[in-house]
């Protein structure tokens, strides 16, 4: 079956522009996560969705970052007024439920470059 997909695979933008990153989780997975991977910071958690609600947004670095999930499926991560420090690979993951021991399945990521 299909895995987690993300689009675009690469995004180059200018400082100050808004960007939207999309994640399609594995069908039937109710839990969805966004992480960010950068050279200096490693893998950082951003936000967790259970269904369409986000019980844990504690990793969002600033109010320029927001995310939504609709229909318990597709999620969009939006970064407003991008800054150069936002450059990173943004990874989406999904799991069957939010149960602690379920492994997360990761997408290939979106590489964001802010010039």
């Amino acid at each position, binding site marked *: 079956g299909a895995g987690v997909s993300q689009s675009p695979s690469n995004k180059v933008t200018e400082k100050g522009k808004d960007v939207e990153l999309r994640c399609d989780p594995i069908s039937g997975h109710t839990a969805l*996560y966004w992480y960010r991977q950068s050279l200096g910071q490693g893998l950082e*958690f951003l936000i967790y969705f259970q269904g369409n609600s986000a019980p844990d947004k504690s*990793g969002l670095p600033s109010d320029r970052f927001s995310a939504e999930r609709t229909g318990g499926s597709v999620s969009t991560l939006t970064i407003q007024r991008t800054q150069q420090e936002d450059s990173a690979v943004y*990874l989406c993951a999904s799991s069957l439920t*939010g149960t*602690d021991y379920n*492994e*997360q399945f*990761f997408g290939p990521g979106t590489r964001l470059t802010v010039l």
Partner: protein
Amino acid sequence: AQSVAQPEDQVNVAEGNPLTVKCTYSVSGNPYLFWYVQYPNRGLQFLLKYITGDNLVKGSYGFEAEFNKSQTSFHLKKPSALVSDSALYFCAVRDRRAGRRALTFGSGTRLQVQP
């Protein structure tokens, strides 16, 4: 707070030799522990997890990991390394008691298997 340490940035091993990638963790309660592998320009792939029970966990591609509660470690091992095992390996933890769904990752260890 939960944390993971991977003390080695890189591990070099000759093909056919056993390999170990080290991981130690810190949680307030009992942990769920995971290993993921990342190949170049790919997302993270799940290798194995420890939930409870037998301290030796077997996973994909011949990898195994041993949970040691007294040493708070979860080292990844393989009896005979392959060149194709060369990749970036991440250990991750989730604290059962904290109720936080997100994974906390280590900084990653690059495994280089020489022919």
